[in-house]
């Protein structure tokens, strides 16, 4: 392993493995379904996270990984007899490798009706441009 990789906390796979091992201790989680759209200036990530409150979502940028966590409070499980339980998980977790072509200081997110939208802006140099032939 190179010194640079060690500084970043190992390879992407090593970081992912470490995160998953920590999560597995805390209960059942699922990978939420996503749509990822690339436009000229941005990447847009739409994530289905029903049942989460805005304040229970964390989005972290670790080296080149964007790590997404959400906790669902299933308080109603204790309110009575559970007759049917298809929503078995209490956590959402997913990670994305975003690379370095995005502007790391300009990441925006909003949460609406159970759908999280993350907007990653491309860096000026990474935007497509046409090169004129003289």
């Amino acid at each position: 392993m190179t010194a640079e990789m060690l500084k970043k906390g190992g390879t992407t796979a090593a970081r992912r493995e470490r995160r998953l091992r920590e999560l597995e201790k805390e209960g059942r989680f699922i990978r939420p379904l996503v749509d990822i759209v690339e436009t000229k200036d941005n990447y847009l990530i739409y994530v289905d996270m029903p049942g989460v409150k805005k304040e229970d979502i964390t989005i972290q940028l670790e080296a080149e990984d964007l790590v997404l966590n959400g906790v669902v409070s299933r308080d109603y499980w204790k309110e009575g007899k559970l007759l049917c339980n298809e929503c078995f998980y209490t956590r959402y977790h997913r990670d994305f490798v975003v690379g370095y072509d995005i502007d790391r200081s300009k990441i925006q997110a909003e949460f609406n009706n159970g759908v999280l939208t993350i907007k990653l802006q491309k860096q000026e140099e990474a935007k497509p441009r046409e090169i004129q032939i003289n």
Partner: protein
Amino acid sequence: MLSRFGPNFSFLPLHQISELRGKLEEMFDDAYSRVTDWTTVRYPYIDVVDTGNEVIVYAEIPGCKKEDLKINVVEGNLVLSGERKPVEVPSDVSFLKNERPSGTFSRTFNLPEHIDTEKISAKYDNGVLEIHLPKREEVRPKHIEVNVQ
């Protein structure tokens, strides 16, 4: 310098297994996203809780508008239906991933006799539809204290 393996290449078998795990997960996600006819798949997923006075159905339907959801009582069945619209994007952009289902869906539940269908109420919050099915007065649990003399 151009290299065949890229700057981060290293031979670390355990990490490659972990990468394989990620790829397998992705493969299953892709299979899931290829479902085109959502009427044959169970959607949405629900939790049902009996609190004594009422039965509450929690259905996970993220990203719907309130007016696109319909709850009907038909011949003693509760029919939950609706439509999920796909993401609105300009036509010239590309999808890198498209896993979230869209289209119409419907699920039917058999209502027990003791539900008061006149008083069914529902709310939609954070992508979860909550349907309250109150029980008839006479079947609600009662607490009767008997004085022993």
